[in-house]
């Protein structure tokens, strides 16, 4: 797995590639932490290239949200496949995070 990063008008777009599970969540967590420490506060996580997310992956998103909170930052999710959408729903993530249908929508949401 690799995590692709790009910056779109002050919005950091994260595209986890492949599985986001125990084996690669530490790497994803490190990258996100580095980005937040360097000042990123608006983050879109685009699951278009992500095939699977486990509870370990969810924890990375939650940890990121906790780090962003005191900085007034936001995370928006998008392009979740069926498995990811179900996990987000079951875990209660959808009560805290928006999961939109496209990256454009996510960027629009963060641009407000």
């Amino acid at each position, binding site marked *: 797995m690799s995590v692709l990063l790009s910056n779109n008008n002050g919005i950091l777009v994260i595209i986890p590639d492949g599985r986001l599970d125990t*084996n690669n969540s530490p790497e994803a967590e490190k990258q996100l932490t580095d980005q937040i420490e360097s000042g990123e506060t608006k983050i879109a996580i685009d699951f278009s290239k992500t095939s699977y997310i*486990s*509870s370990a992956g969810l924890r990375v998103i939650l940890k990121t949200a*906790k780090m962003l909170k005191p900085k007034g930052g936001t995370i928006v999710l998008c392009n979740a496949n069926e498995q990811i959408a179900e996990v987000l729903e079951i*875990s209660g993530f959808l009560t805290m995070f928006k999961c939109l249908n496209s990256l454009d929508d996510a960027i629009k949401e963060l641009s407000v």
Partner: protein
Amino acid sequence: MEKDTSLDIILRLTRATESVVRGEKRAVDILTELTDSTQIQKEIADLAEQINTIVVQKEINEFRLEKMVEDLLAAQAELNEAKHDSITGLANRALFHERLNKECETAETKGSDVTLFFIDLDKFKQVNDTMGHDAGDELLMLVSKRIQANTRDDDIVARIGGDEFTVILPAADKEDVIRVATQIVEELNKPFSLAAGIAYISGSVGISFYPAEADSPISLVKNADIAVYKAKEHGRNNFQFYRDTNSNQIK
């Protein structure tokens, strides 16, 4: 190294889960490491994943609650700010009317009464004009403290305008009313030591009763205001009852 047996792995999982239950630091990270592991039997990894999902559910709920409490506290602070005077921290005009309505309703239900003091500071404008607005603000703060120090615990003190204060006294007997009014007048007549120097003012207090003299909170305020004018006419630095005013006698 010999490969772990299923039993060894279950024991590791049990220990990790126990640590999570006990709230030990890093416990969830250890549990997370067991999920999806290709080194262990798939069924056990699945079990670890399910347990870890429950933990994440709990963590997200905690995070949500934390945020809800913060939002509630922020909203409460905002509401509080909107109803209090920024200089003295006392109830402002809006909150004063709200509290007065409530106290009049309670009085009606209980068959008790409400006494209202309308306090107008004498010579406040002079302090503001000669010593500056900062001195004026400092004086208002000290005035609010002196008024509060001489009222009863349940009385409600408000600042409803520039140099106008009110005190709502629920269920006060005649002795209470005279004692509190006398103390306020005396205290306001003592010198105030401000950063810019000593200020000398006094207070004129108008007093009216609900429901004996007023049929609504609004007329109670009006009556107390009329009584303040009477106190001003009597040379300031005193208190007067509405029932002794001319307008009341005409009625």
